[in-house]
């Protein structure tokens, strides 16, 4: 990745976007799994958007006459200890899980992405301070640090988002720093400086847009990790409180019933979790093939 792309003029941009579409078609044809991942992503987004309006039952309504029913035509995924419909709960939970992941990724993109660009662009002390903060975070096993942060700051969903953002910080810094560093003396940066732009304007208006494609790959790859992390935290009882439907806490609620054979309580939310993470990982890989074909594995 040592390209020093010149800012493209409007007519050239049209040609380029055309070739990006062609390249995208080629990548999807080459690897149909990416297409599948994209379809899954649409499904998840749809469930997150419309979930509460389309589910057949109230996700919070308990029905003591129908507790622990296995999956049937009436309750597609069965019912839990309180007789709540698991299908409705799994679908409604999509929104919360999606929002937690999205918020934490947006937050870490703002913190880590900007810190990384600044470190790569300015070098010197900025680089050293940002590097030291990243190293300190990396000195912890990440999930353990997230536990510590949520335990200290208070057991809320906001703090889950914050903790997930903090443990992803070093990853974003590393990518943004490397990408900004190779561009700090690129022709378009020098041209921008000669036209009288200040450092911050160059950073935000010239370098940031150029490294966005790589950052998008990073965002997609860390979305899956963010979902896993948040679900893991709520599995051990942090953040989301019952009876709120959320995948991690639903698996935890079904954990005790596994040994007595009621598999459906934990299986369906766990499978939803797995599919969501799988989807984001595949999507990230596909996006990387699109943006940076050389790094394909």
């Amino acid at each position, binding site marked *: 990745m040592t390209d020093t792309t010149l800012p493209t003029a409007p007519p050239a941009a049209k040609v380029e976007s055309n070739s990006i579409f062609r390249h995208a078609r080629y990548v999807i044809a080459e690897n149909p799994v990416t297409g599948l991942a994209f379809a899954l992503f649409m499904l998840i987004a749809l469930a997150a958007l419309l979930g509460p309006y389309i589910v057949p039952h109230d996700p919070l309504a308990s029905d003591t006459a129908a507790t622990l029913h296995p999956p049937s035509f009436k309750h597609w995924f069965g019912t839990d200890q309180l007789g709540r419909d698991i299908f409705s709960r799994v679908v409604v939970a999509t929104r919360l899980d999606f929002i937690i992941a999205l918020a934490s990724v947006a937050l870490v993109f703002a913190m880590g992405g900007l810190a990384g660009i600044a470190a790569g662009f300015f070098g010197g002390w900025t680089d050293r301070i940002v590097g*030291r903060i990243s*190293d*300190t975070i*990396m*000195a*912890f*096993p*990440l*999930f*353990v*640090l*997230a*536990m*510590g*942060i949520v*335990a*200290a*700051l*208070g057991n809320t969903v906001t703090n889950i988002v914050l903790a997930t953002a903090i443990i992803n910080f070093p990853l974003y810094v590393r990518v943004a720093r490397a990408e900004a560093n190779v561009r700090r003396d690129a022709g378009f940066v020098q041209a921008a400086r000669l036209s009288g732009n200040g450092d911050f304007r160059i950073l935000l208006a010239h370098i940031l847009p150029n490294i966005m494609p790589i950052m998008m790959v990073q965002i997609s790859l860390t979305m*899956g990790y963010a979902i*896993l992390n948040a*679900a*893991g935290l709520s*599995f*051990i*009882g*942090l953040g989301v409180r019952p009876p709120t439907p959320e995948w*991690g806490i639903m*698996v*935890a609620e*079904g*954990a005790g019933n*596994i*040994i*007595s*054979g009621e*598999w459906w309580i*934990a*299986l369906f939310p*766990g*499978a939803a*979790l*797995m599919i969501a*993470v*799988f989807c984001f*990982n*595949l999507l990230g*890989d596909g996006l990387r093939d699109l943006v940076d074909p050389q790094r394909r*594995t």
Partner: protein
Amino acid sequence: MLSLISKRLLLVIPNLIGVVIITFLLTRALPGDPAAYFAGPAADKQAIEQIRVKLGLDKPLIVQFGRYVADLASGDLGNSLTTGQPVVTEIKNRLPASAELTLFGLIISIVIAVPLGILAAVKQGSWVDHTCRVVATAGVSLPVFFTGLLLVYVFYFLLGWSPAPLGRIDVFFSPPTQITGFYLIDSVLTGNLGSFRAALSQLLLPGLTLGIFSLAPIARMTRASMLAVLASDFVRTARASGLDSRTVILTYAFRNAMLPVVTTLGMVFSFLLGANVLVEKVFAWPGIGSYAVEALISSDFAPVQGFVLTMAVLYVVLNLIIDILYGVIDPRVRLEG
């Protein structure tokens, strides 16, 4: 070699300082007034004030930090609010359980992932390669607590091969005499075969869960690094000289390909130590992870903090060992050091 180790040890110091500062900040970031928190809900104003002075919370932050470091240096991590026991002894008693589980999981995943990665690289594009790719992607997507529950359902409930997922050893067996704290090793050392079998059968499922979880990065890295090495000149020379493919792959390529894999182990340990907490909760494993989770639920902060600190120090030490191992394997690193 010695200079490499001492140089690396110097690098550990800023990391440890960072860890101590963060854990200190985490205690002071407790929501609300820490003194009121430690005094308990029934305390009146005077009692809270007493606790504040006793804990040194009325002093400036830097003095508090000094006290904190002094406490750490004397091995004092505070007492648990619920049990009243010192956190250090509890962690010391539970650490072997966690360590045995983590290492067992790591061994399982290395035994599966390394041959899988090598085969995938040697037979690139074959079904082994595709299996490797699917396993690698699925492995990172599976929530570790979910894998654990699935294994419990299949091997305990459906097949009945595995004992109930409750702790390190069946209640009908007495744990082996403590030597290392690792039940498997201790029962072999004392020649107690019954205990060995009982401990192994309890360890198998949680170990497998952790193994599946850490499989992906190791297999992926082995494959990528084997591919790079297999394409290099010295492998071509070895092939051209008529060495059989077994020698070329295992002696020439594999040894060189191991280096990046050893480096990945650092990241794998970060995952493993975190996943350990979740697996311990699923299998009611009496390790430090479940200790921290129990404390978290009852808002007992000292054990959580002790746990985070222990894990971080362990992780820093593990990374140090990995770096030294790197020097042992690769003479070039030693020369630079």
